[in-house]
């Protein structure tokens, strides 16, 4: 664990310090009533963090598709083998950049809950630092701490400034997530304890008992142990992602939280679950992932159709978006379950693009809800004439959500379909049905909001069309979605080698010797050899 330049931990500390700064006396209510100074300060710091992340990514990735890996290690509780290990590799870089971008967008978005003073900015910065930490940590205990820390700012914001039924929603959100993560904590402790034992037997001088890379090298777990521990980890990540049966908390949270926070949660919290599966579960529990792949893919595909169908009949904008998130993430789960290098790379790419798109959708719909003063579709309609800029951006992001080619979500979805078809043709086909339903509910939502006879908007506080900083925010997000859609090669080149490293354990036990000699040189002049195990013979549909 070579400790490179210190900035890696700055990515976590900078927003943290800024958040504490925001609470300082100099930003007190009377000195800075609208919080303009505090907003500038938090924007400044968040901008620097984004720049820093880009710099580190660029520095680490000197030549193309070499495995980028910048890491930093400090002793935290050495006696127990717990270390402050942060690693930025091809897998976590896109997610870290997504976190910085979305936090910057949410901070820059001007309409925050009226009664939220500087606390609003500090909460978002806290959440950003926790999520960044979660994406960087490779020490299981450290990851667990960030995984829990992520929850608190969102919870606080929701409970303080949420909608009418915010307390029940906050409580349900807390209980769902904590029960899941407590199971994971037990599994982590068991792993660490066993790891400590094994390492001491081998007389390792520095016992990284909780570090995922060290743990994955010493395969100490029998297949039943892997099953139990795998299920514990899966419980935590399934609640977070969310995978269908455990999504109870999502509609309430997305309905009650204030716009900025729900954009942040929808864009990032779900991704940590997915990232966790790839980062921790593949290397640590290869047997479990191989056996559970079928069930996971099934849940993913069912999630796509289930989410789409329910989004179809929702009258409340926010719950429609919530169920559409479940549907989109179901697709990523299918990709992750297929565990081929292409499907997982596609899933990571789709997760990042979904983050950008959902954040934008929630912000735009947030502005429309404020403008209309109501949440349900029946009171919307005919807004295209009165807010043309809003209509344009909503159209761009709705089409991106429907995975139109040349948008980033098509690239992700296409890779998942190609990668997962080899493994689970039936589940991929089911997921495709969900995609059609996706087109139906997204366009219905757009039609009921924007088209129809022109109306000025019934909201008492008509917030006017999208202008000023919002146009910059939405423009940046739209530019990111389109450019990732047309030129995704660079990002895919960073993700793919890192994903291959994560899947090494799994491919080893599956392919055995045959896998080793199959060199990845391209037999086909134009397209690569399909990575899935499926040769032509076991393809039966």
């Amino acid at each position: 664990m070579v400790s490179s330049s210190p900035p890696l931990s700055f990515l976590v500390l900078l927003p943290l310090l800024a958040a504490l700064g925001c609470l300082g006396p100099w930003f007190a209510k009377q000195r800075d009533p609208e919080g303009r100074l505090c907003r500038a300060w938090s924007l400044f710091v968040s901008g620097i963090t984004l720049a820093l992340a880009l710099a580190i990514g660029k520095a680490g990735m000197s030549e193309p598709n070499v495995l980028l890996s910048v890491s930093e290690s400090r002793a935290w509780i050495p006696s127990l083998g717990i270390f402050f290990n942060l690693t930025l590799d091809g897998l976590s870089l896109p997610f870290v950049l997504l976190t910085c971008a979305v936090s910057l967008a949410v901070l820059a978005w001007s309409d925050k809950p009226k009664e939220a003073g500087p606390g609003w900015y500090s909460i978002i910065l806290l959440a950003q630092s926790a999520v960044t930490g979660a994406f960087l940590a490779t020490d299981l205990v450290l990851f667990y701490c960030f995984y829990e820390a992520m929850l608190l700012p969102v919870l606080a914001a929701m409970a303080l400034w949420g909608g009418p039924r915010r307390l029940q929603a906050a409580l349900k959100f807390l209980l769902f997530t904590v029960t899941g993560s407590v199971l994971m904590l037990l599994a982590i402790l068991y792993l660490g304890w066993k790891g400590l034992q094994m390492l001491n037997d081998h007389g390792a001088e520095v016992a990284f008992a909780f570090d995922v890379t060290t743990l994955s090298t010493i395969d100490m777990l029998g297949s039943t142990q892997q099953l139990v521990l795998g299920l514990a980890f899966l419980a935590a990540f399934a609640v977070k992602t969310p995978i269908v049966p455990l999504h109870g908390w999502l509609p309430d949270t997305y309905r009650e939280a204030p716009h900025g926070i729900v954009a942040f949660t929808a864009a990032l919290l779900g991704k940590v679950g997915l990232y966790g599966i790839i980062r921790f579960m593949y290397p640590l529990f290869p047997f479990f992932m191989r056996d559970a792949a079928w069930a996971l893919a099934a849940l993913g595909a069912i999630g796509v159709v289930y989410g789409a169908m329910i989004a179809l009949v929702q009258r409340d904008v926010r719950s429609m978006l919530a169920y559409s998130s479940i549907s989109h993430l179901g697709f990523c789960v299918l990709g992750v379950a297929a565990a081929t290098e292409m499907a997982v790379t596609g899933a990571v790419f789709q997760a990042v693009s979904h983050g950008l798109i959902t954040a934008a959708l929630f912000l735009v719909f947030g502005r429309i809800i404020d403008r209309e003063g109501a949440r349900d579709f029946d009171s919307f309609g005919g807004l295209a004439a009165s807010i043309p800029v809003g209509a344009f951006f909503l159209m761009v992001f709705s089409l991106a959500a429907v995975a139109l080619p040349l948008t980033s979500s098509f690239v992700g979805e296409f890779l998942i379909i190609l990668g997962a078809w080899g493994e689970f043709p039936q589940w991929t086909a089911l997921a495709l049905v969900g995609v059609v339903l996706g087109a139906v509910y997204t366009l219905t939502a757009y039609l009921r909001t924007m088209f129809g006879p022109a109306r000025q908007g019934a909201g008492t506080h008509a917030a006017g069309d999208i202008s000023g900083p919002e146009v910059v925010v939405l423009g940046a997000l739209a530019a990111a979605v389109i450019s990732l859609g047309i030129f995704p090669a660079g990002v895919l080149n960073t993700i793919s080698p890192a994903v291959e490293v994560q899947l090494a354990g799994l491919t080893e036990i599956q392919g055995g010797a045959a896998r080793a000699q199959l060199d990845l040189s391209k037999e086909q002049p134009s397209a690569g050899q399909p990575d899935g195990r499926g040769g032509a013979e076991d393809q039966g549909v």
Partner: protein
Amino acid sequence: MESGDLRLSLVVLAPVVGSVASYLWGRRAPKMAGVVASAAVLISFICSLMLWSGARGGETFSAALSSWISYGGISLPIELYFDSLSAVMCLVVTGVGFLIHVYSAGYMAKDAGVARFFAYLNLFVAAMLILVLGKTLPVIFIGWEGVGLCSYLLIGFWFTDTEYAKAGRKAFVMNRIGDVGFLVAMAVLYTACGTLDVVELGRADVLARLSPALALVAGLALFVAATGKSAQIPLFTWLPDAMAGPTPVSALIHAATMVTAGIYLMGRVHGVVELDPLVPAVIMWVALATAAVAATTALVQNDIKKVLAYSTVSQLGFMFLAVAAGQYAVALCHVVTHAFFKACLFLSAGSVIHGCHHEQDMRKMGGLLRHMPVTAICYGASTLAIAGVCPFAGYYSKHAILSAIAGVSNPLLVGAAPWISYCATAIAVCTAVYMARSFIMTFLGSYRGSGHPHEAPAVMTVPVGILGVLSVVGGFLLVHPIESFVVGPLPATSLPQEAGGVVSLIVGSLPGIFGIALAAYLGMAAPREAEAARRWLAPLGRVFERKYYFDEALNFLFVAPIKRVSRVVYRAVDQSIVEGGAGAIGSVTQAVGELACRITTGQVATYVLLMFLAAAALFSVFSQVR
């Protein structure tokens, strides 16, 4: 980027730039929108012409716009590929497209959103060109969904009317269902053959990797994609509703270009389609059914645009008949000639509607020959062309299709070939009848509408005139040269030889002439027989009227159940199981808590007894331990 690549990428990039420019410029000077947009399409047309001259010598061009999804194991760049097949399609799209752009400059002049209109129209042409020039299936898919998007935007152009917006949504969703087929085909082909390159998929050794089951799946999936886009049964009900859009849109998208994308796709990957003989058989029967249904429905339509819409669906059925018979070049020729006369029909219908102050119902028209001579002549020429009367364009391609059906070599279809060709001829007669009926109701007799119709301005009549000429000349000038020109990418056409000379020409155009005569007789000469025929055919008429109740059937089979099931799933699964589950856990813990409280009775004796019991238990445990 040597000259070939530059011109090729210019073909596609010109409309894209044109779209943005016409929107920005058009907002300030509405007049300029039409000019910029038409100029952009003209540039593409000229570049296509230059490339076409190169392609005639068998040369192919390719240009890579972006290394799209190429990393580690896979490389799928956005690459354009110009060979003879895409040359023909390019010329049709840009040529007819340019004429329609000029026409719509006049048609949409007074509309408020003219800048937005031309932006979408240019974007559509760009998407269609990407579709036609794509080297790999994903690039074709980009164009495929791009045209779907533009047709959604253009159909719902006047979005203040919810009905029009719903029609746009219907079109997009039905296209989307077809696109799922496209995605499935791509997934199967990639996983099995390892490549998605169009040229690769033509090679026998690559196709050999497909197991028979997969070949069937891939072939049918491709056909599902084609039905979604080219409006075959069951995914055709969106086309008549798409008439909600402005008429130039119908002309460009729903007559000349987008709807023919399905046939182009079949031609492009004909290797996969022909692998399993069952696929062409399915195509044949579906195409025949579609042609029959559409032709009969068109008989009783009174809205001029609806008649043309159903006739398009019917003609597309004809093209797919040629595809099923394995004669892709013949289908392509019919695409070309159909583009000419159908675009001319739609544009002249547009002029009529423009003239009669947006009146679309033919019963309120009539006798427009006097008021709109040029439009009437062009409409008449195209009617004769579509009916397949000898010198006109329709004859050559439609006759080739009929003979292709007769000479089909597919084992599954050889038996039924004679019956299919009889049906096709009957449908050809039916086409002639409804087209002549529409001509008679609109242009002959006395004017039944209010106000007084006026001839369309020059900017509209000139393109209609050019298309009229093309639909007359296009037949004998272009059909045979095209068939020989596209031999490379498409298999050579082998039609059964029939005797040359004037006799075969007359015999060939008999169905057309007979149809026109029948319509003339019923329409003008004998109103009483027409009335009797209508009463006798009344029940059948209502069936045709309601499009064989396809709309209601689709609604009943798919849309309503999905909505009902979704509501049930939402209430049953989501509310009761998922939410209920969480709630249940809460109430169970509360109940257990209450039970535990019962023990504190307040009586000292109870507590002492419990202590005593505990002591006894502990005592007996420890006494065993030692």
